[in-house]
């Protein structure tokens, strides 16, 4: 489902809004009738807020008539769902075999060594979160990465530096 974040308080530069109980309630109500509604609802919450706030769990549980434990169990099972807000932008670097064969691990190590930025961390200014991903389906143009949903092929150190420094998309 697409999310209408309406008048929620927008977080600059991220396209997201701050936690808003009423908005969360609307999102749950809109999605609750579909069969197997939980994943689409969690996606919609994350799309709106950038993460799944703890306060959303009871709202989802009540809307779907399941336990809070079930909601938490599902939210914590999948790599996509975050428990806390990340950076305004997310860069996912592929660390699967095809990208390994083209030097992806060297790129990750270089980033760690030169900038002290590790996978899973966010830059000090809160602008960029770095994540690992295992295959983006761009295996003939490795190494691959994804910046806020846009696929990047033939990634090299210069391009990576530009992204981390906020000079390029």
């Amino acid at each position, binding site marked *: 489902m697409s999310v209408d974040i309406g008048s929620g308080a927008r977080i600059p530069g991220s396209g997201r809004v701050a936690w808003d109980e009423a908005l969360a309630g609307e999102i749950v109500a809109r999605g609750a009738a579909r*069969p*197997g*509604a*939980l*994943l*689409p609802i*969690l*996606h919609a919450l994350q799309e709106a807020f950038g993460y799944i706030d703890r306060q959303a769990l009871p709202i989802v549980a009540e809307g*779907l008539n399941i336990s809070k434990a*079930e909601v938490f*169990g*599902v939210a914590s*099972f*999948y*790599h*996509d*769902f975050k428990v806390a807000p990340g950076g305004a932008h997310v860069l*996912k670097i592929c660390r*699967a*075999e*095809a*990208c*390994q*064969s*083209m030097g992806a691990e060297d790129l990750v190590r270089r980033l760690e060594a030169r900038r002290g930025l590790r996978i899973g961390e966010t830059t000090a200014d809160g602008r960029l979160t770095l994540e690992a*991903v*295992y*295959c*983006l*389906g*761009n*295996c*003939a*143009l*490795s190494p*691959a990465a*994804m910046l806020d*949903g*846009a*696929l*990047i*092929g*033939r990634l090299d150190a210069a391009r990576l530096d530009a992204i981390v420094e906020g000079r390029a998309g």
Partner: protein
Amino acid sequence: MTRVFVPIDSAALSVGAGEVAAAIAGEAERRGLDVIQVRTGSRGAMWLEPLVEAETGAGRVAFGPVRAADVAGLFDAGFLDGGAHRLALGLTEEIPWLKRQQRLTFARCGVTDPLSLDDYRTHGGLVGLKRARTMAPGDIVEEVVASGLRGRGGAGFPTGVKWRTVLEAAAECKYIVCNADEGDSGTFADRLLMEGDPFLLIEGMAIAGAAVGATTGYVYIRSEYPAAFATVKAAIAIARSAGLLGGAFDMEARLGAGAYICGEETSLLESLEGRRGQVRPRPPLPAHHGLFGAPTAVNNVMTLAAIPWILTHGGAAYAGFGLGRSRGTLTLQLAGNIARGGLFETAFGLTLREAIFEIGGGTASGRPLRAVQVGGPLGAYFPESLLDTRLDYEAMLAAGGMLGHGGVVVFDDTVDLARQARFAMEFCALESCGKCTPCRIGAVRGVETIDRIVAGADRARDIAMLKDLCMLMTDGSLCALGGLTPYPVLSALTHFPEDFDRPAR
């Protein structure tokens, strides 16, 4: 007016196709030329992306790989009329890499506008569905049985037999589920097709629905493929407003949430139902007791995308391609350290060596090839000496590997197979659903054991331990994740023992 074709496929965009399209539009306007851009899928020749084509009297002529900075030069060279330029590749259909293929499934991909139903019809679409809707369900199933089509997701189970089981299951409600959770590294055929020719998948699912008596379908697309998800969703809406969906059969696209295990069909069903993607023990089979407890045909994107051709041309015609028990075409994906990577569809029968060297042009780095992993992270690592193995289900199995989804990842001589073996265990630990102990715990122990082997305190003991652990995982795991992780690990150990026997690091 000249039509110019620029891919909108996300792989092409990942190397600048969007900038190229913008440059072409800008340059055409500046020069006052009447150019219409058609955004197509990718032809799959990733090494030529961004591949730009211009429509001329002689046919479509190709240029690639094009950068935005090349565009003004292309106009200067008169590329709209197929003018000479260093990036000119001649008639697209005559490019040897494309010409050598037998494209049944990918016939339209890269040729048409993915979201134009008119294009789809003009290029032979919907003939299979039209025919299927005049046939008895059992006859559709038998047509698929006759084609010899086997599940192209990796397991290779005969599709017609699976459908017959669902058809024969008595139930009021049945489902078609498309597994588009293409998580194996080295594979991208599903993504390419969903972005490049989504109506083919929709047609395949509608035929599947008619064959087994299902009225509802779901496509479960991994969240790492946002463009494929958007394209399939848009195509479903278009098909519905054109009346192709919504009556006898309707369908919906659902998004995964970053879990490799959801490519396993029972985990996928759990996930669709809104639960943790944990494997269900079998039996019962999904064909009897699948989504929401109803009989369900779970098929891969490539499998369902093969169906319209089979219904259009007949099962016997499809079986006329390929050999032995591997009939039809292989949608080979050449990936990793390879000079000419991409999607290459041809009848079964190629050897690994032909695929990698004749088609793929060897390594991208120019260094000697050392290892090849076929079939994703659960596939075996083959040394150079096994490259004459034929890429079909039986031959790969006999050589100690598997064909899987048809992805081939090439590594040059800088690869460390002990590290690759460790990664296989690490990946299994990371992605294990946790339901069974051999996988959940075994993978963690596997990482530790390989670390001890590399550290070198007592290699003979630790190698024996690793083999023992692999046997336990193979025999005791509930699904292919724990059950097949030993393939890459043991093949690395068997074929590249020297990498496990270096001075301690």
